[in-house]
């Protein structure tokens, strides 16, 4: 088991290395650098001035040396101030070293955000915290509801309850966040006036009034999927021999479901719930933009929209990490929950 986890961690590190390199390459394509230079300098700058801005800020160094610097395996070189000729900080708003040091992601330095004029860490981690709160409430709503729907539907396959709930969960998987968000806002904010169509104020304090719509919107897309998986797993368990035995020895239907079926039926949905995180990540971006909630997704869109290289790299690192770690947890957890599976 331990060697399995270690091997998985090794693959994970390799994957992250490859992915960050790809992201680094795509962000640093020439048109993107030009766009960054244009947005960072004043209007109407000539092509030479743009080029010299890029050179002065170290964007024209060798690709691999820059990637190494970002990673922290190559010492980060300070840039030379053209006016004084002395080494200077790359950006005045964050404390880049003035002498060559190893200062990259491995040392905990995520770099400078050119859009927000601050360090990436001071922007990214509060945003992650805000998204964490959103995710927590989404899971609190999504998991019990979807498991309940799945179990009720799978308990008696082919019954009217089953068919109704199945169609309802298919409908919910057909409703992406930007659709359900609009529909919920129209119903609850515009017509009924019960809830706030914007979660901008949620950064200062979460209330039922401003946080329900984002949570609802984000949960609805996942509910259908998890419910369908739970239903499939429940249907399979209900046809097993031991369920028939339990029923034949005179146990009531309810007690068979709760005592015998439930535990075995919940193994598969666990994996599905863990693998929902990558999907939630996309949903989070849509919902945070739609409801103007200042979290991780909002930061990602701002970073991508303004070509904020270090911030976007930080965001990709975090999201890729989340995807990979949830995959690992789901595999390990599955092996723990299901005694029939032994990891070689």
């Amino acid at each position: 088991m331990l060697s399995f986890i270690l091997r998985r961690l090794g693959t994970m590190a390799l994957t992250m290395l490859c992915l960050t390199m790809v992201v680094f390459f795509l962000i640093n394509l020439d048109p993107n650098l030009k766009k960054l230079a244009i947005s960072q300098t004043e209007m109407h700058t000539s092509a030479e001035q743009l080029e010299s801005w890029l050179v002065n800020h170290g964007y024209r160094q060798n690709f691999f040396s820059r990637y190494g610097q970002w990673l922290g395996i190559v010492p980060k070189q300070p840039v030379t101030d053209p006016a004084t000729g002395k080494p200077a900080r790359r950006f005045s708003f964050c404390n880049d070293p003035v002498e060559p040091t190893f200062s990259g992601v491995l040392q905990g330095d995520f770099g400078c955000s050119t859009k927000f004029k601050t360090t990436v860490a001071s922007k990214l981690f509060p945003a992650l915290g805000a998204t964490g709160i959103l995710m927590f409430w989404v899971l609190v709503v999504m998991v019990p509801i979807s498991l309940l729907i799945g179990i009720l539907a799978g308990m008696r396959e082919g019954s009217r309850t089953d068919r109704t709930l199945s169609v309802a969960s298919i409908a919910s998987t057909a409703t992406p966040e930007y659709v359900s968000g609009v529909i919920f806002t129209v119903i609850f904010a515009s017509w009924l006036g019960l809830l706030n169509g914007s979660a901008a104020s949620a950064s200062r304090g979460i209330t039922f009034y401003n946080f329900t719509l984002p949570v609802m919107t984000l949960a609805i897309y996942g509910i259908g999927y998890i419910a369908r998986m739970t239903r499939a797993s429940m249907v399979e368990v209900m046809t097993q021999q031991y369920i028939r035995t339990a029923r034949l020895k005179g146990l009531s239907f309810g007690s068979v479901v709760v005592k015998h079926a439930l535990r075995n039926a919940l193994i598969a949905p666990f994996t599905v719930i863990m693998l929902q995180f990558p999907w939630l990540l996309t949903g989070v971006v849509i919902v945070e933009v739609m409801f103007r909630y200042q979290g991780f997704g909002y930061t990602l869109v701002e970073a991508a929209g303004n070509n904020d290289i270090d911030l976007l790299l930080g965001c990709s690192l975090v999201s890729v990490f989340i995807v990979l770690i949830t995959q690992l947890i789901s595999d390990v957890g599955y092996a723990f929950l299901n005694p029939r599976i032994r990891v070689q």
Partner: protein
Amino acid sequence: MQLEYIGAFNVVLGVLARFWPVWIALVLVMGASFAYKKRLGLYGQLFDSSVGIVGVGICLFWLFTAIFASTVSPFNPLVQIPIMKDALPGAVEPQSGLVYLFGGDKLARDVFSRMVYGSQIVLIIAPAATGFALMVGITLGLPAGYYGGRIDTVLSFLANLVLAFPVILLFYLLVTPGIMETPIPYAMAGLFFMFPIIFFSVLFWTRYKKRPDRLYILLGLTLIIGGWVYAGLVFDADPFRIIHIDPNQLNIFVAVVFASSPGVFRIVRGLVMDIKTRDYVAAAQTRGESPWYIMLWEILPNARGPLIVDACLRIGYTTILLGTLGYFGLGLAPESPDWGTAIKDASRLLRSFIHPALPPTIALMSFVLGLNLLADSLREQSMKD
């Protein structure tokens, strides 16, 4: 100048009337399918359950809407008629006397016509991109599952690499105006669009190796048609100017294929690993058939059930992806009538006007719902066998 309005009942009647070519086509196709369902195989079996009928109905509805878009929609989706700015549903356009059935948007365009034309964009890109993703996934998934070993390790690692990208990040990196100045989208298009040609060439080669008369015709056709489409799509050099794709659409297309082919790869690989242990595969191996013959003519036909179901779900998912792209304003032109862009435009103004938001949302939802119902009923029917 005051606009004239027609009542809600007349709006409903008007919408139903505008769709007349769709209704006729729908009745003809559904009637014929229902009458001959015994002879139509898997497709005919769909008509045995109400879920299947509803699924087929919704999908065909949007298909015919896309085909007859120019007849169904009363206005040009891009033309702005200033007096109709933010007009409520049922407003009569004074000059032509036609009605803005679902009202006008903030740029005074007809919401109804935009919704109808939006279906065209979705119904061209989503199935086509899914088709290419299937080709890529199948061509790579078959050897990975069949041979296993190193080739499987490398291909699976690459697939997991792409799958580990959150979709939205992938799109923000791959679908930008800047990237179209670089050769990356064209290189990726050149790579992906090779797969169908390779697939069909190998398919015919393995089957008709011993029968040159058939082989040369089929191979020639594959190469001519494939090469023609390839030249048109990748180099925009179709000599007849029939196949043409805008650079930004090519970019979207490539990004969507890139994002969804690893999923197909994983499914195909899993299916192949399961099927290759069957007796008929062992029989073919004993006969001395070549590995690619076994993969393409023994294993693939037996994996078609789950693949068809997955394709249906995947078209729906691709539709959602296209909507996401439109919602973030990536790739598609800002005035494009596709549903995602329309939802983006309308959702910013929800506080003042809600009518431009509802038609595209309901359209997108119903189409994806139709595909999901179709997939669900297909799965149920194929499990009965």
